[in-house]
């Protein structure tokens, strides 16, 4: 029951590490790779604070073993934007007050990013249904939904302008 050689692509960067199979993806990201954007919230696959994108799927990284993720392509909030160049979703969360304490926000935005790729023109209902795996205890969701709809409009306008 030794350690395993694990390869991951995280935010475009190849990572190789030795980990026990029982280590959870969230622990590998935070403690071994120093990627602390995804948060540990409930640790029971309910709250979505640990959401990362794994091979094109939004997953709760507290409920994925590092061994299962071996070979996967992972995107976290760090891969979407940074303080000097915010992603449109981050900008819209800021403008529409889509966060207060900010604990759920990395998971929210990483999930919303995948949602908007699958459905670039969501209705409010689509957003609420598609974000149902992420809990926020501060905002009451109104402004989160507004921010995601605003980001969708902004991204679509940018796409049209580029054409």
């Amino acid at each position, binding site marked *: 029951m030794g350690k395993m050689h694990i390869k991951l692509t995280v935010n475009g960067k190849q990572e190789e590490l030795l980990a026990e199979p029982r280590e959870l993806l969230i622990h590998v990201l935070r403690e071994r790779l120093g990627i602390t954007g995804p948060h540990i919230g409930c640790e029971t696959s309910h709250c979505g604070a640990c959401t990362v994108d794994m091979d094109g799927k939004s*997953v709760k990284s507290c409920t994925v073993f590092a*061994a299962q993720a071996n070979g996967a392509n992972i995107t976290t909030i760090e891969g979407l934007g940074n303080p000097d160049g915010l992603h449109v979703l981050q900008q819209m969360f800021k403008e529409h007050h889509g966060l207060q304490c900010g604990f759920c926000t990395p998971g929210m935005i990483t999930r919303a990013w995948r949602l908007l790729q699958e459905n670039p023109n969501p209705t409010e209902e689509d957003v609420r249904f*598609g974000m*149902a795996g992420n809990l926020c205890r501060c905002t009451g969701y109104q402004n989160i939904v507004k921010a995601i709809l605003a980001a969708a409009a902004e991204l679509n306008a940018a796409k049209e302008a580029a054409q």
Partner: protein
Amino acid sequence: MIPSRFDYHRPDSVDGAVALLTKYGDEARAIAGGHSLIPMMKLRMAEVQHLVDLQGIDSMKGVSVAGGTVTIGAMMTQHELIANEALAKAAPIIREASLQIADPQVRYVGTIGGNLANGDPGNDMPGLMQCLDATYVLAGPDGTREVAARDFYEAAYFTARSDDEILVSVRFTAPKGGYAYEKQKRKIGDYATAAAAVLIEKDGATCAATSIAMTNLSDTPVWCEAAGAALVGSKLDKSAIDAAVAAMLPTIDPQEDNRGPVEFKKHVAGVMLRRAIERAASRA
């Protein structure tokens, strides 16, 4: 919340997975999406020394619709089932039910095979498969065998599958007529307080055939033959639906828990069945 130590295996064939389950016996568990097993391992309520991950087995993926028969690979996720247009056309009740399971993140990894094989009375797919009269294909050391969904569930977490077998696919005849899956849950991500799967075929205005199954109202799903029979030959009017609900109630055996007392669950079961019959009838 860190599980105890285990060895991890990722076989690339059903035979390889069965060989590992056979070799390690009680110490091994197969894992699909893992959203039932991993929480139990984290709580150390499930002790696993050898985890056999099925994600590398390509033959357990895919959906085929051929000659009126639908076959679904056990490793198809709920997200993939929802997105599959051929499946939505052949058996739209699968999409309707899948959309009511858990939340988006869980649906990306949760599989139909895990949902069916785990034997959790709270899972939605077992009742749905009983409603569809599906057949499960199990692979074991002596080859494959088939078990009807209506014969598969013995008690909570006890099924006809033995420890060295893997549920590899499920097969059913594409349903005709109207359908509905109605589920009452306290919140997103919760299991059903009560749920009903209903199929209805009509001949003119008369109900010609039905199938009805209830979820999370006993220690197994409940296929309600008598409730379905109460509708056949009727115009699906209020008295027929009342008779179907009355025939369903003695077949369920809900237990009091944090979703409510027994009487409440029976009440909700009746409401879900009534709504499902009405909606299925409107689509038939």
